[in-house]
């Protein structure tokens, strides 16, 4: 039971991270490899807000959300918009976002140094609950609640609002969307902002969960994020949620029953099998090629 809950907590963070990843891919057909850098940057910024700004953990979250959104706008402007209309936009977008990620990480190193950082002692409330014999901290409950709330909010926005309709239109066919009066550039920018904001919150939650932030933390989750969005289905939001939870659970149970050194083989073995049997992922729709 304890393992199950731990798996769900870590899985919800993976899901939140992966949803940001898959949002950009699903709507804009671009893989934004600066996403993990946003994840890392926001963890450091979150720690600074608590440490120097004296904010409580929870007050820092909305600020980090906004910070992530701003980074998202910067990523779109610097790494993706200049490539618009280029035949190699796919490859070039990968590389330009990698380059921007490198710049973000370098800036983090400039501001915070290369060392691991932690939240100041006493930032976490001590409240604990007992659920069916398993220990759960208030912090973990809040992590889960925040992740779920953001995912529900995002789903509502995409399916019910005017902006969400614009996003889906752009995903379907950018040219047609533009003809029909959707401001494609704005929708693109907002998509990046939301995606990065979610990645940023995931970064802080992750830092809270393990109480550390490292420069390399983004790279570590990047692979997992990719695995999750493939398993769930590229561009599928519920798929990313399920994929994230599955990965969290698989990891926790793998550590217990198989040994920690084999975690990645399981994750990628699973990934590989899914790609071969169902390239569109568990919940992804197969795109029909047109002649």
């Amino acid at each position, binding site marked *: 039971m304890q393992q199950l809950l731990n798996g769900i907590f870590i899985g919800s963070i993976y899901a939140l991270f992966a949803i940001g990843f898959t949002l950009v891919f699903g709507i804009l057909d671009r893989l934004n490899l600066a996403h993990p850098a946003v994840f890392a940057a926001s963890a450091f910024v979150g720690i600074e807000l608590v440490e120097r700004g004296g904010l409580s953990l929870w007050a820092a979250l909305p600020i980090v959300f906004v910070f992530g959104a701003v980074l998202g706008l910067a990523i779109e402007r610097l790494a993706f918009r200049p490539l618009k209309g280029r*035949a190699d936009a796919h490859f070039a977008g*990968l590389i*330009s976002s990698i*380059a921007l990620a490198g*710049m973000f990480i370098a800036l983090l190193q*400039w501001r915070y140094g290369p060392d691991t950082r932690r939240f100041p002692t006493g930032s976490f409330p001590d409240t604990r609950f007992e659920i069916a014999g398993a220990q759960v901290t208030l912090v973990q409950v809040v992590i889960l609640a925040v992740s779920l709330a953001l995912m529900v909010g995002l789903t509502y926005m995409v399916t019910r609002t005017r902006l969400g309709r614009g996003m889906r239109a752009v995903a379907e066919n950018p040219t047609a969307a533009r003809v029909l009066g959707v401001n494609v550039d704005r929708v693109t920018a907002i998509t990046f902002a939301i995606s990065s904001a979610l990645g940023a919150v995931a970064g802080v939650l992750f830092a809270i969960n393990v109480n550390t932030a490292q420069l390399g933390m983004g*790279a570590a989750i990047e692979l997992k994020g990719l695995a999750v969005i493939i398993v769930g289905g590229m561009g599928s939001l519920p798929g990313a949620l399920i994929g994230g939870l599955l990965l969290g659970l698989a990891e926790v149970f793998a550590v217990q029953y198989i040994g920690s050194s084999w975690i990645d083989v399981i994750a990628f073995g699973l990934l590989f099998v899914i790609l071969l049997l169902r390239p569109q992922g568990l919940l992804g729709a197969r795109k029909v090629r047109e002649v």
Partner: protein
Amino acid sequence: MLDEYATTLTFIALGAIFAYSFYAVLIAGQLSLGQAGFAALSAFAGAYLAPSPTDVGDVPALLIAVAIGMSVGALAAVVLGLPTMHLRGVFLAIATLGFAEAVRVVLTNQEWTGGAQGLGVPRVLTVGMAWLALGLVAYWFWRMGRSRYGRALEAIREDELAARAMGIDVGRHRLAAFVTAGAVAGLYGVLYAYYVRLIAPDDFDFVAAVEGLVTAVVGGSTMFLGPILGSGFQTIVPEIQRAVGVEAGWIRPFLASLLLLVVILFLPGGLASLIRRRTRLPAGAADDARADAGEGPGRGLAGRHHPAAGEPVVSLSGLGKEYGGVHAVRGVDLEIRAGEVVGLIGPNGAGKTTLVNMISGLVPPSSGTATVLGSTIGRTPVHRIAAAGVSRTFQHSKLFNRLSALENVLVGAHLVSRPTFLRRLLWLPSARRDERAALRQAVRCLDRVGLADRAAARAEALSYGDQRRLEIARALASDPSLLILDEPAAGMNHVEAARLSELITSLARDGLTILFIEHNVGMVLQTCTRVVVLNFGEVIASGAPGEIAADPAVIEAYLGSDEDDAGSAGSGATAAGRDAAPPDAVTNLTPGAAGTLDTPDTTPRNPT
């Protein structure tokens, strides 16, 4: 002097070789990150299995290890490639990345690899050997560039479907590119192992794979010098920063990343785009081609067997295609014989393109049987249908956009030209002869559609009408028995359309069987020997142009049943070049009347 920079130079060479393993697949439009896994397997296998340099000497030990490593890399690529080659783009990248990560974890957990501590390997590689290896790899890709194989890979990158229709076996070519990548990555792994003294599985992790990819793309993934330039750039930038006294810490990675961003944003095509790419048209090729004109397939080209006039080329019986309950094509019986020029007309959505897609093997039929030039449709892959002698153009141009007009047509000649890559590696004169033969064929085809003077232009830079004509030239280059044109005159102005009409007539005179879809009914009636009318997926009329123009069912399909409307819409176009047309024949039918948005017919007509 050289010693001082030996380490830097060696790393440039190693980085470039690794980048070539990415280049090998990027050139075919594949994004793979599995090269790190190939390199890891090869490095450990080579270092573990090869005899020690103290027993057999430095160079033999290294050579044996290289042989082992390249074989292991190639083999791993076959094993990984067979199940994953159907994946595209990011999906392939992530699947191969998954493989690389799995390899890394497995190696870390093995005893013989030394686990995370790594495996000690004697340093044997010198800067000279590294550059020699790089030279060989670069030579390979240089000679590949202008061979038939290299062009086929580029064609697959630009447009996979069109490449298939030109008779290229895409699956085999993609796998070949992937195996090349595996072997080159294996070479890198072994050389790296014999240089750094201690290898650990983490040397070949995700970061290393991304580094290799970045190097290849920064250098330029469409030109063989790209990886070397990329590696030089990636290795030298930090060195220069150190030399000019930029402090270690955050500034160096920041500047390196910034430069990378600038290069990728402002140099599409990478650093190699700074080098002007020469579009080769050897002097004399054009003259040769003109001298050859009319002689049929030139020397050095594979001869084609064409069916004799009157032999069946296409036989369809009860052919149908259903899309989720919608019958796009239903119960079509049709026979086309060699030498015929068949026009396929019908309102939009009548199923013309679907029918043509089935005939060319792109879409499998859901019912009925079809034989095209001896191949059964449905089970035969597109490239085999093309090899049987079917060549086509597409409704929406599917050119290889970043290749020159000439290269487009050369790809079209894939089926009639001979493979030249291996002979080019050895500089055999016969390869040169065959290349020139293909070139002559291409120039001849360009000349035939009137594009000879645009040979060096990129396909995407051509005007719309020129692009359509280039597609026809490309289709002609394979010396087909059956030529299928899908709305060749769409979007052409009346002068261009008239010239196209002449071209089709002259091709038919040469004995080519032609099937073409066109909305320009006037043009169809002028050029075709037989017209087939399709409506709601069924053939409603088939016969000589004169009969078709007078057929009440056809008039109804186009204009509705109101006779008066039909009469007025058709007036003024009654004498469309065919004396046989009855007085009330509708020879130019207003396409708008069928609820379409096609360009109106503006072909000049000569009243007789």
